[in-house]
Every structure is written in C-alpha cells, then in structure tokens.
C-alpha cells in the first residue's frame, strides 16, 4: 500500500556521483532533496575485510546481485536481447554512492587542447590540417572556465597526485594525513 510522504521540491533517483553532487549542491542552496537508492546500507565497518581481493575484485562483492535483478542487452538490432547472467566487462553497482563506491582509477584533467581541439589545431597547423568531413568541434567551454570545477571535484573526490611541474597539474599536493 502506498505510504504518502511529505512533499519535497526535488526527488533524485540514484545517489551516485551525478545524483549525489546535485543533491549536495541543492541542499547547500537550501532546497530540500530526497534521494532514492536501492541496495543494502553500507558503512565503514562493513569494509573490515576489504583487502580480500578474491571477494571484492574477482567475485564482485560490491556489485548488484544479478540473481535478483539484471539487465538484458544486445549488440546489434538483429540480435536477440538476452539477460546479462554473469558479470563481464560491464559492472552494475548498487547502494548509496552508486558506482562511486566501487569506483577506481586515475582521474586526469582534460587539457586546454581537448576543449578547443578544432581552433587550436587550426591555429597551429592551419585549416588544411583538418580533413574534409571530419567533424571535430570545440566544446564551447574552455579549460580556464572549467578549472575551478576541476579543483572542486578533485577536492570532493579526494583526488591527489604528486606535485609536478606540469602546467595543468591539480593544485593540491599529495599529502599523507598525519595523526591516527
């Protein structure tokens, strides 16, 4: 039976990176948000054995239980869509934090050139460098405009790196937190 809850101006389905950031920014602006997420609750104490590589990396402990719910997919229109029965290249996470919880990898900033790939190529090599029919475009937003947000996201996500002389390196220096 439906259980009516107090109305809120914003409901976000999925509390991963995207939903989580939007919810946080809205909440900071004083707007009440309800976030919906599936899966079991997890907190720090649930990760006591997180170094168990077999359980977490090979057996996909953090991923959705496919026996309860899975997706169907096909790679061409002619193929028959079939359920994803076991995990392969595509991993579905669940729980608060979504894919952000089992997210790993290296997060580099895009370079100024990536945002202005067309104009910078033309500036440097001339218009003849871009073959006819190649549809590359500038993003319409530049590195400098986006830089404060790179910085903000890196601090939000705890991204760090060695301080180097690269002009586009993140501004923060990798430090080990002292004190236990």
């Amino acid at each position, binding site marked *: 039976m439906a259980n009516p809850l107090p109305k809120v101006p914003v409901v976000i389905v999925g509390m991963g990176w995207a939903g989580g950031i939007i919810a946080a920014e809205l909440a900071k602006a004083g707007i009440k948000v309800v976030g919906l997420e599936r899966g079991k609750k997890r907190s720090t104490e649930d990760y*006591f*054995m997180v*170094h*168990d*590589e*077999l359980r977490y990396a*090979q*057996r*996909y402990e953090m991923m959705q*239980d*496919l*026996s309860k719910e*899975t997706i169907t*997919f*096909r*790679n*061409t229109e002619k*193929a*028959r869509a*079939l*359920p*994803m*029965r*076991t995990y*392969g290249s595509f991993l579905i996470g669940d729980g608060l934090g979504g894919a952000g919880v089992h997210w790993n990898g290296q997060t580099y900033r895009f370079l100024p050139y990536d945002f202005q790939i067309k104009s910078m190529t033309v500036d440097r090599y001339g218009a003849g460098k871009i073959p006819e029919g190649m549809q590359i475009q500038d993003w319409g937003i530049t590195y400098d405009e986006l830089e404060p947000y790179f910085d903000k996201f890196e601090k939000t996500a705890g991204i760090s790196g060695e301080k180097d002389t690269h002009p586009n390196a993140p501004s923060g220096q990798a430090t*080990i937190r002292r004190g236990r």
Partner: protein
Amino acid sequence: MPTTPNKDSKPMSRRAFLRNSGLALGGVVLGGAFGTAIWKDREEQPQEAPPGASQTPAASGSYQDALMFFNQEQFRLTEAAVERIYPEDEHGPGAKKLGVAYYIDHQLAGNWGSNTKDYMMGPFSPGEATQGYQGRLTRASMFLIGLNGLKDYSQKTYGKAFPELEEAEQDEVLKAFEKGDKVKLNGTDAPSFFKNLRTFTLEGVYADPMYGGNKDMQGWKMRNYPGNQMSYYDQIEKDGLVKLEPKSLRDHMA
C-alpha cells in the same frame, strides 16, 4: 621495471619472469629498483621451502584440507591438473602443495560454484559471443563435466588415469583441452573448462589463505607480495626497498 640479467645467463623460467616482473596483483612498488632488489634478495636468503622437503601442510590451513564437494577421484584429478598449470620448481611449491585443489573444492561447494549471485532463470537462448554466458549449468556442474572429460580422454588416449600419466602426457591432455578440437564435452566445451581450470588455479595460488589455497602465504612469499597489509603508513615515505612480511586477512582479526 628494470630487467635483471640471470646470473647463469640461462633463459628466464616462467616463474622467475612472473616474480621479476613485479606485483601483477597490485600492491605498492617501493622504489624504482624494486625488481632488481627482489632478485638479489632471493639469491641471498635461504630457501623457505626446498622442493619436496615438507609434506606437512602448514598449521594455518590444515583443518581446511578436507572435501566439501569433490569425491576422492575428482580431487586427485584436479590436484594433478593444477600442478601442471602451476608446477613446483626451484622457486617453491606448486599448486598441489599450495592447496589449490582444496581451494577449488571449497569454491565449487559454495556460492560461486552454485552461481547464486548470477541470473540463472529462463528462458534460455543461445547468445552471441558478446553476450556472455547463457547456459543453464552451474560452475560446479560444468567443472565436473570437464573433469569427466579429462578422465575419459586420458583413458582413451593413453589407457591410464590422468594422475598416473607422465608429466609430458598430462601436458598434452591439457593442451588438447585448451585447443578443444579433439575433445567434445556434453554441456560445455573443453577450452572453457581449461580456461576456468587455469583461472581457478591462479586464484588458489594467490587468494588469501583463508580460502584454502596459498598455503602459509607461500604463493605470496614466492613473489614478495606483501598480502593484506592494514596500512603502508610506516613505509610509504621511506626511501628504497622495504621488505615486508606478508599479512593475511587473519592478521586483521587480532
């Protein structure tokens, strides 16, 4: 990673290469001369487990050395096959002494073998190669089909049980399964079985000893893999190579 010339300029063995090529399983590489340092270190330290010296399983895992799933014949067959995939050599114990067959037995007995977290309901339909596993058999069933195939093929080709074959013959059988053209299995195919057997072997060698393989962390010790350290807090800022005794998940329970 610097390559290290072998002292005797013999071609590098497979295991020496694995060891020297760093921590393929992950972990912290401390210092650029890591590979070289490990090599040197290994030359100087006494062998932890000279081949054939110790037949007694390490105390840490001995109660797990019993069967949850296989019968004796299936167990011996598995043990013989995994030993060919990860053989004992001058660097240390092979899959048999590392308890890999127990590891596989325990895995097949549990959730993984029963595909409890996979979608196993119908309707079933053969899929494209890109659509992954679409069968209805569990991993445990498929493994037994593979073992039966191994048994039959050995008997048919050499007139002997697989564990009784010479090593070279066992290798030929396994190669035939890997290739698959001469072996027909009912319900699965020989190359898939071989692939699973190989994956299970590597898991059994390198997964935490809690799971029944990697006896006494010997799989890790052979490669100087530090296992599951709680933290690298005390080492991360040190210069040069830091040698760590491996830690297992059991050490986290202290």
